[in-house]
């Protein structure tokens, strides 16, 4: 029975268990939403529709005699249309660059914040992969999973106010590992220590958030004892 003390043999394949868990990806997507939609963010860069499109820089094509409408005239119409598109596109591009010049450059997120979010993702993945255990352990796992998801939402909301790194951080693969109850307890204890250290090194509301997360993770460890 997985999550029972030291009997991991009859657990299902964690690689199969992780991604099948309903709600996991949905929650992550929900949490990520505001970050990507943040004003001025990488994905919220200027919308072409917001910019006035200048008038085309070409003269309207002269009206053709009905008898002349055909081969060469059609090519002329097409060229004119292409010129209109290019001119309009140029205007949009100019607007895009102008908006980029005006947008404030946001800082990259603190490393502690990024690492904390990564740790929460890994804890969630491991909890999802742990499908065995006694009824009592299962109850704690369900609550710990919900708590870590809440932590991750809070951290990702904060991350959304920072510039997104161009290269991804060392994010977990998304695949968790089935754990025994003792291993989960150890992981929660280590997480609490890490959160406490992050709190001590941070300032303001971020420090308080880490401190509260550390306390929560200690409750998980205590209930798994």
């Amino acid at each position, binding site marked *: 029975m997985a999550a029972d003390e030291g009997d991991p043999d009859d657990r299902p394949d964690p690689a199969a268990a992780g991604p099948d868990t309903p709600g996991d990806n949905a929650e992550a997507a929900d949490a990520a939403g505001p970050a990507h939609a943040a004003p001025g963010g990488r994905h919220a860069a200027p919308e072409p529709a917001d910019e006035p499109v200048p008038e085309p820089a070409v003269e309207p094509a002269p009206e053709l005699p009905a008898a002349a409408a055909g081969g060469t005239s059609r090519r002329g119409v097409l060229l004119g249309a292409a010129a209109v598109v290019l001119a309009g596109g140029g205007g949009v591009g100019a607007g895009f660059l102008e908006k980029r010049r005006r947008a404030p450059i946001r800082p990259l997120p603190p490393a502690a914040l990024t690492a904390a979010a990564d740790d929460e993702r890994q804890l969630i993945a491991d909890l999802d992969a742990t499908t065995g255990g006694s009824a009592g352990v299962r109850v704690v796992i369900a*609550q710990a999973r919900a*708590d870590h998801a809440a*932590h991750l939402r809070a951290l990702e909301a904060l991350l959304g106010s920072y510039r997104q790194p161009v290269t991804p951080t060392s994010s977990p693969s998304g695949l968790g590992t089935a754990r025994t109850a003792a291993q989960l307890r150890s992981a929660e204890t280590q997480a609490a220590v890490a959160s406490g250290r992050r709190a001590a090194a941070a300032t*303001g*509301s971020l420090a308080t958030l880490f401190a*509260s997360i550390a*306390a*929560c993770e200690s*409750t998980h460890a*205590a209930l798994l004892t």
Partner: protein
Amino acid sequence: MTGPSAAVVAAWQAALSAEQQAVFGYALLGPILAAKDRGRAETATGDHEATRDATSAALLAAGHSPVPPAADYPALYPVPDAAAARRLAVRLEDSCAAAWRYLYERAAAAPAGNALRGVAQDALTASAVRAAQWRALIDPSRATTPFPGI
């Protein structure tokens, strides 16, 4: 080197008040608890007494007069039965967790308050754990809270 700001001292005194209330509250609920829960309550009482005394001593050492405990805590009544006693234990611990979390927040904002962070973190965590353990006795599926003290 300056001492903690007035805001930090006020939060520190509030944490002491929460601990004083917890000591009083456990004395109130202890006899009403089921016999199987009394050992947990006695341990919690000892922990809160130790935290109260250490907090008073630290305030004195920092040059501040610790607030005295209230003569009574009417908001804790009534405690009609063992189930209510468990719920009161949760309330006491949640109050302590909130007070220590608030001190942590004040200390994290004040340049001279950082020395208190370790104390506040330890006390916040201790109350969060005790609250979770009491809640687990009431309803095992609702034992934890994602952000203790908030």
